[in-house]
């Protein structure tokens, strides 16, 4: 009796959580897959098996939207990596005490627990036509007219995304840097490696899994992103997420579902290629 209970106990314990995921993650995504083959007559959807929705999204507009999304993804990824790595490196190797490392890391983290919407709105007084940046540049005579591209542009979208999501790059890199055995660095130095060689031969390869995990987060966050594109892009900027959201707004569920399935496939492809390059299993 108690043996059976012992074998069954873990299953009983994981049941509530697994039920939540089945109800609100697995089943919904399966339903998206099903509905993406349904018919849509302009008002309502009916069960069917048609490829019309997929054919409907094979257009130049969709392709352009994807290319634009990739552009946002590429720029945001590059910026989060180039800014995030030095920040994580500084925290891991140049801050002497563990308490200080945790405290400074916390300082970096706090904004990410607050509202994304507010964090984006707060760029308006800085970047707007009469914003601080334009005011400052004009008062020192660098520009005569306010710069238009600062807000409601692709630039603003990327800036907003970097601001919102960079912690997802910093945290995994910081984590993998903290795990590097300090004696390895001492050993490399003793063998005559220069500061740059230590970084290139020891630190960078050992932190690669952190970069991979961070990149996966950035990919999944950006690929379906529509809030930043909507708030910071000001109408002209397009992204797959925004496209889907617009289609849902006009109740074209089957079309949105087909789009979402393509989006899911593309996202998974990118993640799989990241995993092929770097094995992250030992990090988990």
């Amino acid at each position, binding site marked *: 009796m108690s043996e059976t209970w*012992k074998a069954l*106990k*873990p*299953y*009983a*314990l*994981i049941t*509530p*959580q*697994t039920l*939540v*995921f089945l*109800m*609100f*993650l697995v089943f*919904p*995504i399966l*339903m*998206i897959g099903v*509905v993406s083959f349904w018919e849509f007559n302009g008002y309502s959807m009916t069960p069917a098996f048609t490829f019309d929705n997929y054919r409907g999204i094979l257009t130049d507009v969709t392709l352009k939207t994807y290319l634009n999304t990739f552009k946002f993804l590429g720029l945001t990824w590059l910026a989060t990596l180039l800014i995030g790595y030095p*920040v994580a*490196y*500084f925290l891991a190797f*140049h801050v002497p005490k563990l308490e200080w490392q945790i405290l*400074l890391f916390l*300082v*970096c983290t*706090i904004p990410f*627990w*607050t*509202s*994304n*919407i*507010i*964090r984006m*709105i*707060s*760029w308006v*007084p*800085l970047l*707007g036509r009469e914003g*601080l940046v334009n005011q400052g540049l004009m008062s020192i005579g660098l520009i005569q007219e306010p710069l238009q591209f600062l807000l409601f542009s692709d630039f603003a979208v990327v800036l907003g995304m970097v*601001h919102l999501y960079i912690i997802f790059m910093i945290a995994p890199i910081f984590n993998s840097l903290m795990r590097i055995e300090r004696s390895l660095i001492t050993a490399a130095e003793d063998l005559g490696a220069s*500061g740059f060689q230590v970084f290139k031969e020891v630190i960078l390869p050992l932190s690669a899994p952190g970069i991979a995990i961070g990149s996966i*987060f950035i990919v*999944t*966050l950006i*690929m*379906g992103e529509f*809030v930043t594109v909507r*708030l910071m892009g000001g109408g002209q900027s397009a992204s797959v997420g925004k496209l*889907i*959201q617009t289609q*849902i707004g006009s109740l074209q*569920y089957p079309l*949105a579902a087909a789009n*979402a399935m393509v989006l*899911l496939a593309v*996202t998974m492809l990118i*993640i799989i290629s990241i995993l092929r390059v770097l094995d992250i299993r030992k990090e988990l």
Partner: protein
Amino acid sequence: MQKRSLSFYLLLAFFCLFVLFLYGPMITIFMLSLQGPDGGLTFPMRGLSLYWLGQVFQEQRVGNFIEPFVRSLLLGVAVMAITIAASVLASMGFRQRFKGSTVIFYLTIASLIVPSILVSLGIGVVFQVMGWPTNWFTSGLGAHLTWTLPIAFLIMLGIFNRFNPSYEEAARDLGATDSKTFWEIVMPLIAPSLLGVGLLTFTLSYDEFTRTSLVSGQSNTLPLEIFGMTTNVTSPALYALGTLTTVFSASLILIAFFAYNAIAQRQRGKA
């Protein structure tokens, strides 16, 4: 040694600029929300007062914040309760090896990394097909759980990894039942962590936007209400609301951190 200190100062400067980049925009809206009654959306500040912060609590032309705030509060508490209960149970289950644990683990990871819009769309489609009306406390609740539960679960896994099982074994050897062991041994030991996880979960839910956006139904949660305001509010009341809700989330995080530290230290002192 000299060379090393140069790179230290360069990186320190870079880090400070980064912190400024993180906090700078927020500070500007804090300042602008403290303007006088005829303040605008940009600098320079016109006057200094608490007028706009007070305005948040008045009846607004563009909507009312009290009701969405109460909804977000209730939803946050419900999400927190469910998340804590489910993630503690699941992470306890993971302390023992069992068949299928890898699948469950990757299911959790999937919940974290599937693009949010798919979760929102999926739940929306299910409710549409079933003919159920979407609502913040049904479909919205589910959408929030797909976000908070994996995060809480991963944190709980980490906590139990560092948990010393000999206390439980001792209790069991003395004849305590499973539930007695849990409530009298495990629970007091993980309580400070649960407090932290709970507050984190609450703020995640309180500020969640993307996953809720398509499934909140007729009544908005606070982030959705604020998103709606961005297009038609042209007074610093928007900034004032942003200031208040940010201060609210940030203080919960700080309380979580310091309470966790204090309790953990007291426990270490006892042990």
